[in-house]
């Protein structure tokens, strides 16, 4: 093919160099101001009085109990939402049934409910004046202002993350491979384990780490149900708030820096998962022609979250 034709066609679909550089410059400046600076500020503020002060703030017993409560919460909430996410994605992506679009919308619902409202509904269910309040009190159980309430609120807020990630991915991949496995005599579990799971693993990993980041970082919903009892019902974000409001800026930012690190690790894993996924897709695309049928059904998988 003649290169001049390609060059002319390409010139028609791009901008003059000065326009390109201006646009790149504006958007990088914007991202620097709104993303990089806030991130850098967390670490700068945390280390303002040196490493010793930073370390002292993290060694606090209250900080430790906040860290462990956050880890426990995520350890319960993420696996529960993982099982739900896979089940929901399986039935929504693999089958046609009445009311499917309603179900999909309902799965998305927690995304658009304000975290504060999410916390409030659990107070109305389990609080002293709530539906189950008297029963819980009679049996000496505590949900609100205790760990179960925090876990429940976290599950609500992170509810759609994994399902949202998997549904478009599994829809794009279609059913052919699973049907082939079933026809060849595989059981349902074998089909899921050996056929579906390898196809969705990168989306699954991304969904899980994003769900985890939100579970550990949730503030609004947890703040309503926690009661802010130091050393008992304070998660890391709530501990950050208390320290900040007590003008213990370095300590607040020290705990916040751990959460910021978590966010950075999340982004890193996400990028690696995406790159690996793209590489696998490219490998499928480069297969000999007789295999392109299988490849084409798995191509358009880069889903918007």
């Amino acid at each position: 093919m003649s290169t001049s034709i390609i060059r002319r066609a390409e010139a028609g679909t791009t901008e003059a160099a000065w326009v390109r550089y201006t646009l790149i410059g504006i958007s990088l400046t914007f991202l620097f101001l709104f993303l990089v600076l806030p991130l850098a500020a967390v670490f700068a503020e945390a280390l303002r009085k040196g490493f010793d002060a930073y370390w002292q703030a993290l060694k606090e017993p209250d900080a430790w109990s906040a860290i462990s409560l956050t880890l426990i919460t995520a350890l319960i909430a993420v696996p529960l939402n993982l099982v739900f996410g896979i089940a929901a994605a399986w039935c929504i992506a693999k089958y046609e049934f009445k009311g499917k679009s309603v179900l999909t919308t309902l799965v998305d619902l927690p995304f658009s409910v304000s975290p504060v409202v999410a916390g409030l509904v659990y107070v109305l269910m389990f609080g002293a004046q709530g539906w189950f309040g008297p029963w819980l009190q009679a049996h000496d159980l505590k949900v609100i202002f205790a760990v179960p309430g925090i876990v429940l609120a976290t599950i609500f807020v992170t509810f759609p993350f994994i399902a949202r990630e998997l549904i478009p991915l599994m829809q794009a991949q279609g059913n052919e491979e699973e049907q082939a496995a079933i026809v060849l005599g595989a059981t349902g579990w074998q089909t899921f384990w050996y056929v579906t799971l390898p196809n969705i693993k990168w989306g699954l990993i991304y969904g899980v780490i994003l769900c985890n980041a939100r579970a550990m970082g949730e503030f609004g919903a947890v703040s309503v149900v926690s009661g802010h009892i130091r050393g008992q019902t304070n998660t890391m974000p709530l501990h950050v708030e208390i320290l900040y409001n007590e003008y213990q800026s370095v300590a607040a930012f020290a705990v916040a820096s751990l959460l910021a690190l978590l966010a950075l690790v999340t982004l890193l894993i996400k990028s690696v998962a995406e790159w690996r996924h793209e590489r696998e897709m490219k490998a499928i695309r480069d297969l000999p022609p007789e295999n392109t049928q299988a490849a084409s059904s798995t191509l358009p998988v880069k889903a918007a979250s």
Partner: protein
Amino acid sequence: MLSRSAAAAPAKRRAPARVLPGFKITLGYTLMYLCLIVLIPLSALVFKTFTLTWDQFWAAVTGPRVMASYRLTFGASLIAALVNVVFGLLVAWVLVRYQFFGKKVVDALVDLPFALPTAVAGISLTALLAGNGWVGQYLEPLGIQLAFNPNGIVIALIFIGLPFVVRTVQPVLEDAEKELEEAATCLGASRWQTFSKVIFPSIAPALLTGFAMAFARGMGEYGSVIFIAGNMPMISEITPLIIIGKLEQYDYAGATAVATVMLVISFILLLVINGLQTWQRRRSGAPV
């Protein structure tokens, strides 16, 4: 085990649509979990609201302080979402169309507001914009105050909403067919005409979806806003904070009433977003 026996029956009756096993068990589990975690708790809110008389409800949701908070929350979310439409489109465009050093890092960084806990974003933006902060110290002599007033709320919501616009527009731009642009150029269109008449209409549904998502998120946002807002009644008090304030005074009825209003708004926004996404899919002709 269970899934195999569940599969056998429908496969015989309704082949080939349900060859795959597990429909009943996954649908049943999905519905149960959805009811337990989301639907029953949300219905508790609605039922609690019905225990109020209409006058009580109306008084709680239209008090002057509450009305001021609606105006603020709505206005700030709207401005922030509009800013995000402009810059989100720009960032998506630059990431899809141009090559530059560090592009992969920038691309990954766009998701930061999804991953960074809102409270951390809140205190960090406050530290930046306060009078002695990195940015605030240069703005204060000029008479510009961005923290502890409604300006701060808008900035926090821009931070929170940015990835929604970028991540909805980006895949559509990636899939856009270059042939259409080439045809436009060959027919004598200038680059700006090609953009405004060919490219923009094809990404408009995605852009609107991103706008609606950023706006919906802004309406409900709490963690990042309360640190930077200053939280002055009538001036910089957002609606979620009103709910918290009523709860702290044990005014459960009032909190429920305001929360119901917010829930209705989020329902409406959710339906709008769903409609936009359907429109977008139909426009792009994708089967999904």
